[in-house]
């Protein structure tokens, strides 16, 4: 399945136009000041433009967006540092509903997701290794942490073991009985939550006709990793542009910083990193069509390289800006913090690097 190129470029254009007007760096300040950690108004606009239906099948009025289409959105998310749960709800959680949900669940959830009435968050990570969350007789027990947008979500998708000890995804009312939410701010201003479940009513996402939840989750995590590559590309290329302009304008010792060869060469190195991020993002997107083992190898390789490369660009952007680079006032520090979060989600650099290396040395 590939999304056609016109659809993708229309999507990209409309997102760029809207965010240029409504989500520039100054307007984003107001979003940062909101206690919710995102803009409810922007979220409604995304719904009206159809962007929240990106992951829905065409027969549900969606765009059936593949990794490239998702990347077009995520690149803008990275360029504009959008705060809304596009990755968590519109891509990741919606994707799980599309792949795992029973026909009844899809009929109930998908329209609400596309219209922006429903926000979902996936709760997967736990403090201890393994899946200690379990469901018995429709009741969920255990704890999750670091759930991106976990406080904004109306409902949660929670991974847990069923009575046969198989991994499943459960639908839980986030505001209902038996859920304790501890919400907090991330370094980039978005919000996350730790969750505890005490015999919380939980409905399995899917039915007898659904594919294996473990397989679907593995694919979904790779898909999210690829989306993060595109976000990193958007943020890193902005940082490069901003820093490049700054070097031309800022004068020291009576001449622009740009006239120093040591800085020219460092900028050339950043350009190389940026081009590698671009290329590997595309490679990872194409890898989503490969069989699981090869897909995982390529996606993790791209992710490991990109985490490192993008953070390198962020570090250098601060250094070349000098003191102003670490201030709240300048965009640079905001990109820096977004890339910090980006590199920590869905397995950090070391996890992906290990997966890439072990898989590469095995397959050779």
């Amino acid at each position, binding site marked *: 399945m590939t999304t056609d190129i016109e659809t993708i470029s229309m999507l990209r254009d409309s997102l760029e136009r809207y965010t240029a007007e409504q989500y520039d760096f100054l307007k984003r300040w107001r979003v940062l000041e909101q206690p919710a950690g995102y803009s409810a108004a922007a979220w409604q606009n995304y719904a009206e433009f159809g962007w929240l239906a990106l992951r829905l099948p065409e027969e549900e009025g969606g765009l059936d967006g593949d990794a490239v289409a998702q990347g077009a959105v995520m690149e803008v998310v990275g360029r504009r540092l959008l705060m809304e749960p596009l990755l968590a709800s519109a891509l990741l959680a919606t994707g799980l509903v599309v792949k795992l949900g029973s026909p009844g669940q899809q009929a109930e959830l998908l329209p609400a997701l596309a219209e922006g009435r429903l926000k979902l968050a996936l709760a997967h990570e736990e403090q201890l290794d393994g899946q200690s969350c379990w469901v018995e007789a429709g009741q969920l027990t255990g704890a999750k942490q670091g759930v991106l947008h976990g406080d904004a979500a109306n409902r949660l998708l929670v991974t847990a073991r069923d009575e046969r000890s198989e991994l499943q995804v459960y639908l839980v009312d986030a505001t209902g009985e038996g859920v304790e939410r501890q919400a907090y701010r991330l370094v980039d201003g978005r919000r996350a939550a730790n969750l505890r479940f005490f015999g919380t009513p939980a409905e399995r996402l899917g039915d007898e006709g659904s594919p294996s939840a473990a397989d679907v989750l593995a694919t979904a995590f790779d898909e999210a990793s690829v989306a993060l590559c595109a976000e990193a590309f958007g943020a890193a290329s902005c940082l490069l542009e901003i820093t*490049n302009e700054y*070097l*031309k304008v800022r004068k020291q010792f009576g001449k622009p910083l*740009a*006239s120093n*060869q040591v*800085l*020219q*060469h460092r*900028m*050339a*190195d950043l*350009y*190389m990193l940026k*081009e*590698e991020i*671009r*290329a*590997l993002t*595309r*490679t990872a997107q194409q890898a989503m069509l490969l069989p699981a083992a090869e897909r995982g190898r*390529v996606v993790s*390789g*791209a992710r*490991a*390289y990109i985490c490192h490369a993008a953070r390198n660009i962020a570090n250098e952007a601060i250094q070349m800006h000098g003191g102003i680079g670490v201030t709240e006032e300048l965009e640079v520090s905001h990109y820096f913090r977004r890339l910090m979060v980006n590199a920590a989600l869905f397995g950090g650099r070391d996890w992906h*690097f290990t997966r*890439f*290396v072990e898989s*590469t*040395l095995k397959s*050779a």
Partner: protein
Amino acid sequence: MNKTLRDRAQRLREEVREFCRHEMPAALRDKSHRHQVLDKDDYLQWMRLLDAKGWVVGHWPQAYGGRDWSSLERFVFEDELARHGCPWIIPFGVKYVGPVIYTFGSEEQKRRFLPGIVKTEEFWAQGYSEPGAGSDLAGLRTQAVRDGDHYVVNGQKVWTTYAQWADWLFCLVRTGNDGKPQNGISFLLIDMRSPGVTVKPIHTMDGYHHVNEVWLENVRVPAANLVGEEGAGWTYAKFLLKNERTAGAIVGLAWHVLERLKKLARETTRDGQLLIDQPLMRNRIGEFELRFMALQEVAYQAVESMVEGTDNGGEASLIKVRGTELYQEVAEALVEALGAAGIAYDTAALHSAGLPPLGDDDVGGILKEHFYNRAATVFGGSSEIQRNIVAKAVLGL
């Protein structure tokens, strides 16, 4: 990217792979497997073998005996040959001067020189660098003074690869001194047998004779051997350097040494454990693999963007810098992993079928490659020049 183009490139890759596996003459394959020193006859055999396949000038237009390859096919061809450890394609005729002649040369020059280049009947060398003009090529001082229907050339060229075998030298000379140093440079074709041409070897640390000084003393060159216009040589030189930087071979070379390193790590036990299972080595190989993936993907997509015309002008520099850095570092790691065998170097084994004093039969060749590839980040535009290009041409700094 056009699917037909991509399919054509893939078919070419498979043909080249088949050729490397089954059609390479055993003696040549053996030498190239050991990274041994090849002599002129080996190269003649190799280049003519490629010509018989129609590949040696595959990137030329059909009108001059080529196949009109796209940049992608050219890239795939060079990449695949290098992956199999094939001999170098000596580029001075087929890649450098040939395209200059068919693009800017006279009809007479095309008729006279192109067939000999395609068939490798004449060897060429490149007269660019001088003692005072390396990266700053426009600073060259070799003089050509018009005397009737000849030029009289005086000066010195350096780093001239395989000048000892060359029949012809394409040479940048100064015919004027007005204005910018780039003005007044001309492009001359010089017969190496002309009186006044002296070739002196430069010995490199691999113990081999690749490069030379070429001294030119009152060498008389027919004016008919001037390519294009007098004083326009810088334009042709830049055109040539652009061709020089399309090297797809660097990806294949990096792959080749990385495969060799993995093979060694899987077969070598040290301190009671296979190298591949030792955490530091495993991490090192893993980092190389990751960088190789980045190099390969960047290179492919860059070449595709060149075909589509969407490139930003920095891609060739990027591939060269990243490719040569990786190639050097992997070769260095490989030599280190050889342990005691990595410092034993008997150059005699490079020329004969004899075994090196320690290690496998290719160990001497690996060392030779390690020594020689230290120059990979220097020649063809040093890494620093490549960064200058990116900073100026792409970033506008």
